[in-house]
């Protein structure tokens, strides 16, 4: 029974006192060469160390006292050995003691070499030691010297030693003793090519020795579990854990034996080791040792003995955490596979995949209580393995996913966050490996796995998929693939079930939808027919997204479609004899319906802009009615839905700007639209806005191209109207604020006059300009408060006029009459 805390400290102090007391007398005896007394006091001193009262750690502290070892520096070798051997009658771990034994070994070797005593005699002599534990330690030490001397075959000595050690059945002492044996013997095994190699077949003796030592050590180790009361089970397990490497070392030694080639490993070593592992029926030992086997022996051996190795798993105790060990094995094999191309055929040859797959299946079946996360983790390891070893075998990859689906089916959607994390890892692995969503789309079980995720994780996975596409700039080029992809990411595209949580973070939602928007640009095919199919497929899906999503998803689709229209524009006319559906007209119909959906959000401003884009595109395709229809829709929106005055200003300028570029309209249509545009311009709320919009309209009547409209009169009408509005604005300002109004408006209008003057509008004469200049000058002089920016504007305008005058040539002549 092991003590606790305070008691231990007390015993430790007493032990130290006892040692010091006897040490003093021992020294005195040694000084007077009284061997007998020296030995007596040393035994008394060291019997303090026979205590079972201290835990291994405290014992170590006791032995740590450096001068205890100084005591052992007496002249007499035998005394020294006695003293040290008395140490080992306690329960403790101290490698330094083993170092001391090494010194002793050296001493023995010197003595036997010198001929003071023969090795055989020494071997006999030490067996007379009273206490069995010191006896055996000494025996092993001498045995080491014996083997080295080669006076007897290594195999005989080793056999003797390994069997003699049976004398110690106390678990901890036995473990340390055999560990010592293991340590001193490892460089003296009769291995192939070693100097201790005997006649034929000695490797088997070496193997036999190590396996026997291992077996006995394991038995002792397992026995520790059953010592003591059940309530201290945890403490015992902890202590056992500390000692596990002592047992494992044997396996290490086995792996280092040159003579253990694949065949011997297969025939002898592995079966014997597994036998012990299975038969010991101890959870701690089984877990550790299986792990050890996997770590210590080369991967190619594992590959070749896969069946045997995997066969042991079902025979292990049900509480053993097999999945960790299996995962370890698969990870090692994955790394092995990645190490070089040449090893890959081996994997195929031993049918590694099916063996592992079956083993996992059996384990999952057998361990009914295994939580879902455990099973998924196993599948993740298997998938990693498969992707490394058989990346071209999509059927294997799909098989693993299928097994997962089977495990998940029949349950409610997963809620365990660790499990969902593992599933995301499972689904991300093929994406990362293949760098191509298209490959993942070919796996029928892929979407089925996704279906088992809860909504939140499903969306996370969908975003992962989109990010993978963006990162690899993958282009998805057929409508079928687009369909499959949008099915996969449907969690982002629409509300999948009625109980969609409204608590979704707005920022996150925006990010999600923006990534869907970006995705739409990755869907492309140069063939117009296929591209149209893609557009229709996307439309079909996003239309279900509802008012929250449409503002994000409609614009990219619209522009995708407009690009297609332009592409078709470039192609000339009709392909004879073929039924094409990809025509600009058809696309405009789709566009119309798609933009219309924005009204349900409602997003009138966005819809207005998109209608104008379509109008321009229709213009470029020479489709007058279509263009007119789009303008109509834009105007309707302007009239009915755009109420904000600032928004109206932008909207009217967009309408004017677009209309100005239209060349497809006949006179009537054009007139209707320009009339509407100018009308709305004049009706804007603020006078300055009205003024600016109206003079912008002047450009509607003058297009500076070869066949462009050049209606000088209507230009002038607009400019005059703008002037009237500017005047009105002036007067209003005088009345309401007592200050002057926006003089700058006049200067702007002057600049517009100059524009048309230069373009050659006959209605704009130099006298008109002169009048306007004088008007502005007057306004600015009567102005009480001056507006520096207006001053600067006027100044730069006059500078411009001056510059034009000085240009000479036609321009100079034109400007000549103007005086500034």
């Amino acid at each position, binding site marked *: 029974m092991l003590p606790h805390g305070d008691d231990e400290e007390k015993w430790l102090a007493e032990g130290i006192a006892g040692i010091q007391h006897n040490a003093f007398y021992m020294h005195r005896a040694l000084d007077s060469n009284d061997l007998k007394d020296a030995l007596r006091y040393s035994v008394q001193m060291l019997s303090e160390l026979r205590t079972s009262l201290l835990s291994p750690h405290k014992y170590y502290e006791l032995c740590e006292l450096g001068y205890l070892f100084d005591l052992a520096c007496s002249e007499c070798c035998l005394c020294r050995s006695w003293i040290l051997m008395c140490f080992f009658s306690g329960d403790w771990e101290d490698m330094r003691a083993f170092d001391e034994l090494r010194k002793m070994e050296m001493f023995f070797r010197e003595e036997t070499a010198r001929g003071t005593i023969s090795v055989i005699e020494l071997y006999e002599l030490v067996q007379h030691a009273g206490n069995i534990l010191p006896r055996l330690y000494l025996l092993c030490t001498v045995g080491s010297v014996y083997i080295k001397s080669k006076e007897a075959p290594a195999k005989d000595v080793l056999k003797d030693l390994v069997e003699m050690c049976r004398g110690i059945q106390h678990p901890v002492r036995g473990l340390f003793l055999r560990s010592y044996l293991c340590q001193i013997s490892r460089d003296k095994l009769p291995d192939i090519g070693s100097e201790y190699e005997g006649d034929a077949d000695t490797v088997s003796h070496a193997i036999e020795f190590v396996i026997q030592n291992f077996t006995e050590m394991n038995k002792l180790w397992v026995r520790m579990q059953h010592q003591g009361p059940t309530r201290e089970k945890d403490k015992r397990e902890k202590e056992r854990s500390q000692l596990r490497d002592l047992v494992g070392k044997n396996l290490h030694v086995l792996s280092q034996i040159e003579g253990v080639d694949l065949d011997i490993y297969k025939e002898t070593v592995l079966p014997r080791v597994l036998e012990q592992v299975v038969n010991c029926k101890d959870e701690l030992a089984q877990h550790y040792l299986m792990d050890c086997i996997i770590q210590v022996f080369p991967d190619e051996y594992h590959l070749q003995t896969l069946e045997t190795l995997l066969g042991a798993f079902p025979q292990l105790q049900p509480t053993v955490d097999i999945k960790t060990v299996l995962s370890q094995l698969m990870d090692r094999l994955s790394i092995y596979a990645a190490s070089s191309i040449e090893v890959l055929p081996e994997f195929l040859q031993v049918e590694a995949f099916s063996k592992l797959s079956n083993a996992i299946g059996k384990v999952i079946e057998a361990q009914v209580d295994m939580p879902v996360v455990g099973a998924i983790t196993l599948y993740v390891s298997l998938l990693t393995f498969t992707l490394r070893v058989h990346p071209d075998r999509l059927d294997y990859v799909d098989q693993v996913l299928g097994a997962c689906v089977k495990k998940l089916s029949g349950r409610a959607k997963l809620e365990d966050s660790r499990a969902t994390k593992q599933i995301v890892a499972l689904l991300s692995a093929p994406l990362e490996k293949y760098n191509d969503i298209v490959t993942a789309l070919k796996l029928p079980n892929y979407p089925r796995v996704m279906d088992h995720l809860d909504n939140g994780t499903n969306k996370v996975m969908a975003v992962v998929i989109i990010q993978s596409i*963006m990162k690899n*700039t993958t282009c998805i080029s057929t409508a079928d693939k687009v369909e499959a992809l949008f099915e996969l990411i449907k969690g982002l595209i629409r509300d999948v079930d009625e109980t969609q949580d409204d608590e979704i973070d707005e920022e996150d939602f*925006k*990010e999600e939808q*923006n*990534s869907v*928007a*970006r*995705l739409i*640009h*990755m869907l492309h095919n140069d063939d117009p027919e296929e591209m149209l199919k893609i557009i229709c497929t996307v439309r079909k899906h996003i239309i279900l997204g509802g008012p929250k999503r449409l503002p*994000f998803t409609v*614009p*990219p689709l619209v*522009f995708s479609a*407009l*690009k297609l229209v*332009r592409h078709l524009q470039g192609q000339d006319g009709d392909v004879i004899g073929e039924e094409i559906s990809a025509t600009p007209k058809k696309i405009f119909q789709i566009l119309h319906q798609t933009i219309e959906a924005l009204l349900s959000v409602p997003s009138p401003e966005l819809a207005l*802009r998109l209608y104008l*884009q379509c109008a*321009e*595109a229709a213009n*470029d395709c020479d489709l007058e009615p279509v263009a007119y229809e789009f303008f109509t829709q834009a105007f309707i929106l302007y009239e009915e839905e755009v109420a904000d005055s600032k928004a109206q200003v*932008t909207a009217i*300028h*967009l309408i*004017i*700007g*677009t209309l*100005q*570029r239209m060349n497809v309209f006949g006179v009537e249509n054009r007139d209707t639209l320009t009339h509407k545009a100018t009308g709305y311009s004049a009706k804007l709320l603020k006078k300055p806005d009205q003024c600016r919009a109206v003079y*912008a309209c002047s*450009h509607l009547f003058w297009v*500076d191209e070869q066949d462009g409209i050049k209606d000088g009169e209507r230009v002038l009408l607009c400019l005059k109207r703008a002037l009237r509005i500017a005047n009105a604005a002036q007067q209003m300002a005088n009345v309401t604020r007592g200050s002057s109004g926006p003089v*700058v408006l006049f*200067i*702007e209008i002057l*600049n*517009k006059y100059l*524009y048309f003057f*230069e373009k050659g509008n006959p209605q704009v004469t130099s006298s008109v300009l002169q009048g306007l200049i004088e008007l502005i000058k007057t306004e600015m002089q009567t102005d009480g408060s001056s507006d520096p*920016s207006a001053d*600067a*504007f006027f100044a*730069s*305008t006059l*500078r*411009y006029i001056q*510059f*034009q005058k000085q240009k000479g040539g036609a321009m100079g002549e034109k400007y000549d009459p103007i005086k500034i």
Partner: protein
Amino acid sequence: MVLVLAIGDLHIPHRAPDLPAKFKSMLVPGKIQHILCTGNLCIKEVHDYLKSLSPDLHITRGEYDEDVRYPENKTLSIGQFKLGLCHGHQIVPWGDLDSLAMLQRQLDIDILVTGHTHQFKAYKHEGGVIINPGSATGAYSSITYDVNPSFVLMDIDGLRVVVYVYELIDGEVKVDKIDFKKTATTQSAH
């Protein structure tokens, strides 16, 4: 030497998924002192990205910008130059250099940076210089066909500005440069 990036009309994510990779690798933080962005980013992510390139970021509103609070136009001084920024959808006819020159006179600036047409332009007139950096993503435009991604870097040094235009043509970045000098008067350049 003061580096000013002129960039705009990215239209992310409406018309383009992202900046071209080659541009992204060229635009590193810490090298550019000022950024003049003509507008139509369109989303906050792009704003944040530009902000990471240089703390002195100026943006004017494009008609598709998510943030409607950007100003219609902006003026600022850098070194000896007065610069102005405006998206350009407000100036009809779109892309008309004479009409843009009027805006330049009105704002009393040496250099006007404007966009909307998605076509690179560097034009010198009586009142100064008009620069259109084009579309950094090569986004679709109703005005310009076959848009190549482009942006402009201005190196302002005393009375001289060197305009570097970077265009992505067939997967390769091509650079061109134009020199402008301002005459040393207190008034705008002639």
